[in-house]
């Protein structure tokens, strides 16, 4: 079920009413949440519910065993069970074809023809997100940071809670499980901030991102006939499309969760207002970047083992972070670009003994991010190289406009999106809290304006970009 569908518009109030009618028992509320989460996921493909149930059961069981196990070795063994099973599932469903194909290409390059090894595998929606969530649960117990829960329904709800099930935010057990295992309350602040964030999220996704996507798709699908200026504008549009698409999704997720009394962590914090790439990664897809930092970068040694290993760890973390997004060399290169520039930044800061860049840092950061987006969006490496080539050769000429109406709408909505972001950013507040500053009447007027903007400018994209990951 998509957040921007009529189905969700009906689903959310029904679950909301039933949920709060059962407010006397949080355990009954959890049962409702679990059932509705499975309905939400099964709407897409009920067969893959078995994977979520398997993954939930496995980590619930491993969690209990980790708690009970005595000695480092025993704990390590149970952790390995969780790691191998979760990453194994992810490997089969997400990466098998990629590695099989890469293996066949490598063999072919050395003159050994290998039969086609790829399989017809469907990528289950959300598998990368809930796998990371269950993994963090087991690792946190292993590290002694949390205790395993005995509440099976509660744990299954933690894994599958519908607002964050298919595209995050990747919630840590330490934040979410205590909320699930305790009575939730709904206050006026949660209602106001939740409603505001849901509608801002819808506007970001349905109006801004989807309208930008029309132009981006039309250029990127025929990149060979377009000049550098058109490709540059399309890439800038894509930078904002993916931001508003994914942050919009996160806003709807966080806002929806608030209506059920849950507080999720922030996932985006105005990432394009960053003066360094390091800062960008503290603001972009925060639940993933903090996950990678805590469970990968630090596990590899972080910055504790000398300068060379620090750079290696950064690069490796970003390469794997890139691969997390999808089974393609484009994503690896995307991660590689980020890893390389993060390392260069670290070196520059230590050499110049500075902590950040001046205002030019905003431009530098945006340019690096922009170049990396070419690899993220292009269907393959030759296409990405060709696009970068045209942009860097300054192969500029008349700008392709395509559908004038769509182009004007996209530009106008993008400007509105940036202005809204700028307004909230400069208020030293967060989008998560912003709705609380309005009275009920003012909030209703703002939401009404957003609804009418959606009526006039909605675009009908099939999916959210991050669903494919």
């Amino acid at each position: 079920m998509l957040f921007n569908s009529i189905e969700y518009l009906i689903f959310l109030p029904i679950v909301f009413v039933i949920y709060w009618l059962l407010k006397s028992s949080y355990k009954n509320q959890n049962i409702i949440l679990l059932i509705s989460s499975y309905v939400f996921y099964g709407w897409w493909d009920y067969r893959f519910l078995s994977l979520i149930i398997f993954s939930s059961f496995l980590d619930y069981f491993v969690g209990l065993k980790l708690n009970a196990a005595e000695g480092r070795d025993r704990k390590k063994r149970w952790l390995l069970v969780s790691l191998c099973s979760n990453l194994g599932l992810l490997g089969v469903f997400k990466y098998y074809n990629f590695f099989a194909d890469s293996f066949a290409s490598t063999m072919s390059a050395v003159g050994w023809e290998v039969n086609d090894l790829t399989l017809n595998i469907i990528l289950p929606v959300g598998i990368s997100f809930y796998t990371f969530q269950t993994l963090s649960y087991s690792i946190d117990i292993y590290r002694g940071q949390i205790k395993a829960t005995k509440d099976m329904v509660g744990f299954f709800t933690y894994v599958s809670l519908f607002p964050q099930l298919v595209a995050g935010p990747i919630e840590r057990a330490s934040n979410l499980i205590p909320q699930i295992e305790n009575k939730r309350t709904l206050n006026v602040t949660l209602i106001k901030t939740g409603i505001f964030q849901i509608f801002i999220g819808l506007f970001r996704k349905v109006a801004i991102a989807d309208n930008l996507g029309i132009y981006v798709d039309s250029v990127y699908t025929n990149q060979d006939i377009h000049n550098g200026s058109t490709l540059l504008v399309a890439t800038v549009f894509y930078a904002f499309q993916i931001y508003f698409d994914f942050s919009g999704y996160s806003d709807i997720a966080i806002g929806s969760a608030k209506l059920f009394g849950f507080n999720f962590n922030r996932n985006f914090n105005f990432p394009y207002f960053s003066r360094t790439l390091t800062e960008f990664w503290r603001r972009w897809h925060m639940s993933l970047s903090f996950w990678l930092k805590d469970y990968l970068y630090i596990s590899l040694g972080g910055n504790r083992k000398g300068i060379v290993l620090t750079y290696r760890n950064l690069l490796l973390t970003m390469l794997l972070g890139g691969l997390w997004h999808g089974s393609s060399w484009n994503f690896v290169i995307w991660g590689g670009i980020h890893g390389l520039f993060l390392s260069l930044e670290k070196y520059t800061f230590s050499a110049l003994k500075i902590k950040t860049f001046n205002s030019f840092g905003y431009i530098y950061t945006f340019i690096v991010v922009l170049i990396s987006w070419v690899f993220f969006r292009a269907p393959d490496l030759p296409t990405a190289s060709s696009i970068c080539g045209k942009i860097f050769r300054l192969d500029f000429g008349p700008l392709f406009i395509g559908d004038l109406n769509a182009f004007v709408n996209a530009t106008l909505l993008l400007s509105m999106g940036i202005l809204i972001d700028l307004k909230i950013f400069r208020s030293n507040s967060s989008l998560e809290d912003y709705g609380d500053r309005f009275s009920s009447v003012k909030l209703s007027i703002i939401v009404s304006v957003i609804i009418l903007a959606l009526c006039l400018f909605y675009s009908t994209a099939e999916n959210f970009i991050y669903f494919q990951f």
Partner: protein
Amino acid sequence: MDSKTLKKFIKIIILTLAISYSVDKLIFFSLNKISDKVMTGQAVGKLNQFLSVKDTSDFLVFGNSRANHHIDVGMFSESSYNIGVDGTGIAYSSTLINTLQKEKKQLILVHVDTKNFIDSTYNSQDIRSLKTKFKRNNSITEALNKSGQLSALQHFYYSMNYNGTAIGIIKNFFKPSYDYKSYNGYDPLEVSDSQESIRDIVLSKFISKTCLNNYNLNQVALKHLKSIKSFVEDSPNKTFIFITSPSYNDACTEDNEKLAAIMKDFNLTYWDFTNLYKNNKNNSFWKDPTHMSQKGAEAFSKLLQEKFKSTLN
């Protein structure tokens, strides 16, 4: 949730619904007023102009962008109009044909492409381009309601009828794109010097769609064709010709044969020109593999005109 929170929540919901509903109507009726005066632009102006001239013209052309760019109606009659619009299909054409006065003597040319008839995903979504006339034109409203292409929310928020078009309408209201009185709906595609080399690359790389052994007919498209057929039978004063205009290189003939067979079954006159210029290797006739340039369109219109003369006289 305590009673105070519940009251606040209900207040916000009711206020939001009331304000958004009222302002929606205000926007809708304002846009209606403005859009009725707009006669330029592809989104609404062209449709408005068509509705104003449809029953006084001798010659009308219906279809998609290929109809729009390929048929120079001015060569056929001074009293003519080409209502070919980008991205539309058989549902759009069928709905507009059903708005015509049945008694009026007219020559009607309907441009059809095989794609609509063999594409399993076609669901008459092109009819959404007519939603600015929802609840304002009975025939179009009926077709939109039957199509299932309207959002359920559209019955509450009327301004959704102007989705994606509002800015274009306002712009054309204040600054019309062209002089509509001298516009007959035909939009030739010019190929500039700088575009020629790109066009040649695109044509040289063009690979025709994969041919299938068996094409399943799309029932939605067929339903709309049946609707046109009923209209044809009820309008003895009108002459209907169905055509498919040339494509640069269409390797598959099975789909064309299938469409020709349907037209024959329906007793409709159908001329298939898909491969007319396939072997002439003249790139100057083309803007891209789907659309002819002005030069190609004029050559094709001339040929069509001669065929009309020889067939209809």
